[in-house]
């Protein structure tokens, strides 16, 4: 085929596949440092979570979800200066455990994030120069046609980040002179306590609860739900790649709600030659989707509950997608699939976009 330039909206990415076994779960000491738990919790801001289960597992899932409140987040309009001052700064930033994301397309607009105590400012050249803060170049060097951008990272929990100290005062100065326009933020409180009075209240936040949307009783053509035995070992690499790519595609088609995986789909091969891999098994499945400003720690909690409470032979798939990172809307995703009838065995796909 003739060669063409890569489309500008092309999300170029590679997929890192792990085939592993989850260890025994001790409910008193839930795992945090091992895969896949650390991978799921290590993401930044989650926009979308999707769970696919066999229909007969729905009751257990419903019970799990009823025991927890739907994840909450808030939408609020504040200037960067508001974030850095008063009770909000003291209670939420310094003492609290919150995450925040400001509106804007990364790579085009000036965007701020706050996570794990670090304020990150993604700025264009003019804003960076006006701010007068110390930062690093952001993005791939030499990207043709794109203006250079800058990233500034500041640990706001540091003891040097208080009014009166030079570094902090410089930041306050920048927030007043370069970033005094209020912007929309998404805010999520990761701790179980809210300071009283709520320092967010004067900014009239909109509270949102991410309730899942549920699609039940989908009659689906099922793929093989367990990796092939010879996928392990150096000779099994191709086998694993093939199997995991096909399974990931099937799970994606379920998430897309494509008719191609549904029982009875009789599309003309001229229009589509997709075939569900496997031996023609059918089954009823259920899909739950959450969308919002979700914490990776919540994702890990849900995953832990699923693994602990669903019967060990039940398969399921759990995928978490982050907010877009760049101009092409690059986002990253972790999908996990627990195999059927093979206790603890899982496949995990980590899709990260090339920067």
């Amino acid at each position, binding site marked *: *085929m*003739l*060669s*063409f330039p890569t*489309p500008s*909206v*092309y*999300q*170029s*990415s590679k*997929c*890192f*596949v792990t*085939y*592993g*076994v989850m*260890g*025994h779960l001790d409910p008193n000491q839930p*795992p945090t*440092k*091992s*895969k896949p738990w650390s991978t799921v919790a290590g993401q930044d801001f989650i*926009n*979308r979570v*999707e769970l696919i289960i066999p229909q007969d597992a729905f009751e257990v899932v419903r019970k799990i979800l009823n025991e927890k409140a739907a994840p909450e987040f808030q*939408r609020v309009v504040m200037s960067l200066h508001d974030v850095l001052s008063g009770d909000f700064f003291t209670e939420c930033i310094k003492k609290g455990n919150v995450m925040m994301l400001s509106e804007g397309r990364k790579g085009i607009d000036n965007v701020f994030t706050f996570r794990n105590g670090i304020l990150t400012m993604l700025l264009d050249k003019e804003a960076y120069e006006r701010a007068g803060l110390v930062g690093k170049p952001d993005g791939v060097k030499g990207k043709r046609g794109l203006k250079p951008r800058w990233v500034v990272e500041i640990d706001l929990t540091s003891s040097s980040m208080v009014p009166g100290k030079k570094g902090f005062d410089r930041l306050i100065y920048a927030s007043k002179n370069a970033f005094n326009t209020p912007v*929309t933020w*998404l805010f999520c409180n990761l701790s179980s306590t809210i300071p009283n009075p709520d320092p967010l209240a004067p900014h009239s936040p909109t509270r949102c609860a991410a309730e899942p949307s549920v699609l039940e009783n989908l009659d689906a053509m099922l793929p093989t739900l367990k990796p092939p*035995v*010879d*996928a*392990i*070992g150096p000779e099994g*690499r191709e086998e*694993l790649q093939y199997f995991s790519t096909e399974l*990931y595609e099937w*799970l*994606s*088609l379920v*998430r*897309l709600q*494509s008719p*191609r995986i549904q029982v009875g789909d009789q599309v003309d091969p*001229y229009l*589509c*030659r*997709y075939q569900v891999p496997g031996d023609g098994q059918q089954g009823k499945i259920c899909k739950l989707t959450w969308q919002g*400003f979700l914490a990776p720690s919540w994702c890990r909690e849900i995953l832990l509950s699923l693994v602990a409470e669903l019967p060990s032979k039940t398969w399921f798939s759990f*995928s978490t*997608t982050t*907010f877009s990172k760049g101009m092409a*809307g690059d*986002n990253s*995703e972790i999908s996990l699939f627990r195999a059927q009838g093979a*206790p*603890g065995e899982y496949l995990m*796909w*980590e899709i990260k*976009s*090339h920067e």
Partner: protein
Amino acid sequence: MSTEMDIDPPTTTTITTTTKPTKSSKSQTLTQTTIRSPVFSYAHLSLVSPFLSSSSQNTPSLDTLTARHYLTTALRQFLGDTGASLAIDMLLVKGTECWVRVPREDLAAFAAAVTAYPGQNVGGEEQMLMRVVGCGDWLGALVGREGEGRVW
């Protein structure tokens, strides 16, 4: 970009072995692999019309055959017979949007053809154009991006 971190080496080991995994209380990684060039790529397309009024009464809703026809026309116009014979799998057609699968090496040409397509006359005046909303090698990540704007 980021590298995979083994934070807790004693309990996460990489084993390449041909034995079946045995019951163990520890987490284990049996094998890992990186997929850089999968066989297929995916595209999310949207049918738009710059002349459409907000009442949208004239927006055609696509069916699979019509959508495929627009794509064939666009590809033939841009790439001749080679383009027209490009393998496209229609995964979903809904409202004015469609999702397709193409061989990975053909994605760039496909997207260029769709973008270059000057439009299709529908019912007289209006010009229907197809726009690539997004494309990539991993369908789930494309699907996962949907609706992000709604949160704001």
